């Protein structure tokens, strides 16, 4: 489903959504006031930030380092709070 809003003839019947996971088209990053910044060098790869992220906006890499997906991060700060080594720091968005 694209940004063009479909008319009644084009919509799937029963108001179902046939595109699993297409909420990624809706970027919630704009909600953010504070921004998490990841300091890879401090990271101990505990993955607490990854598992606690409500979006999920923390991408877990194969080596268990992480990356923050700013398209979706709402800036709740849970990641920074649960990080045992302060490898994530919350800063002003602008």
């Amino acid at each position: 489903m694209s940004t063009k809003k479909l008319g009644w003839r084009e919509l799937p019947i029963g108001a179902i959504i046939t595109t699993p996971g297409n909420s990624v088209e809706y970027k919630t990053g704009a909600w953010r006031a504070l921004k998490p910044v990841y300091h890879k060098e401090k990271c101990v790869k505990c993955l607490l930030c990854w598992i606690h992220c409500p979006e999920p906006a923390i991408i877990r890499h194969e080596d268990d380092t992480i990356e923050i997906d700013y398209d979706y991060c709402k800036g709740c700060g849970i990641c920074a709070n649960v990080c045992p080594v302060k490898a994530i720091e919350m800063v002003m968005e602008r």
Partner: protein
Amino acid sequence: MTEGRGKPVGLSGDLAVAYAVKQADVDVIAAYPITPQTIIVEKLAEYVNDGELNAAFVPVESEHSALSAVVGASLAGARVFTATASQGLALMYEILWIASGLRTTVVMALANRALSPNINIHCSHDDAYAARDAGWIQFFAENVQEAYDLTLLAFRVSEDKKVLFPSIINLDGFILSHSLERLLVLDDKEVKEFLPPKEPVNPIDPDNPKTYGPLDLYDYYIEHKRQQAEHFKASYPRILELMREFSEFAGREYKPIKTYGLEDAEVAIMILGSSAGTARYVARKLRAKGEKVGVISLTLYRPFPVNELLEAVKGLKALAVMDRSYSFGSPGAQLFMDVTAALINAKEKPLMFNVIYGLGGRDLMPDHIVQVFEMAKQVAKEGEVKEAQVWVGVRE
């Protein structure tokens, strides 16, 4: 009604419905007992427990859950059935709309019963009318044969890819549900020919995940409703085709609208359910005496057969629309509102008035029908309707 195909048996309306559901090889039944429907689900439970029907019987804890469960099962791809009446339908009300909006293929028997208060287990059409706006196809059975046939037809209609809407088969509580009549039942194999297994559209499938029943705000809700409305309208010609197909298959004619004597009738009664036969019985006697009276009844109540009605009323001077229900504060009871709205722009239309009858199982006797024909004749003669709504069979 012609005889048609099948083996003669004696069954009550409830048992005839249950038999049709068994022959339909339904997959999931969820229901909660309520008089006068209970016998249907008792019998189905018996079929399942005796191994005569390979279905899941979900003995839910309320009608609300009954409809909720069959909605879920229908989405999962199953052929589903439930039954209820009166308060049970009222408890399901919320889910009626969801069942249609999600385009499920639920088939439900409604053994029509009056709504409380005061508690009464007998026939009114309150429950049928309560469901009229919710997007369900509605059939009215006039006798036990029709209750059986329409149940089979309802599965075929609801599951048809050009329809995909749930169906209700109305059968008058007790008058049909608990009364035994002779009917012809089809052979199991024949039923399978007419009604092959359901081919679900967009069923729940982990390999092809879909989201059913999302939040739908102002930017899409109205498009979805418009689509549902257009599709519901468009289902009408398909329902007609399927009725014709069933008629040929069973050798019994089914049409959305039944008329009697309208070729020359000056006045007519329009009525739903089992009383249509009583009205016709009386009309026949009156016609034998040379009176130009007729009867209109509906086998298909939703979608409403507007054009057929327009055609049927041509030449009529007066039409008594009889409702086995009451709509408080409205200009007329439910069928009357349908009929008057359907005819509003017709060039030729009869004078119309509304007759309330039979609430809570009050028997509609042949004398009442005579009375109504007399009123209609009076209206035709005077060329005006003095009383837009009258009651029959009630103590003043």
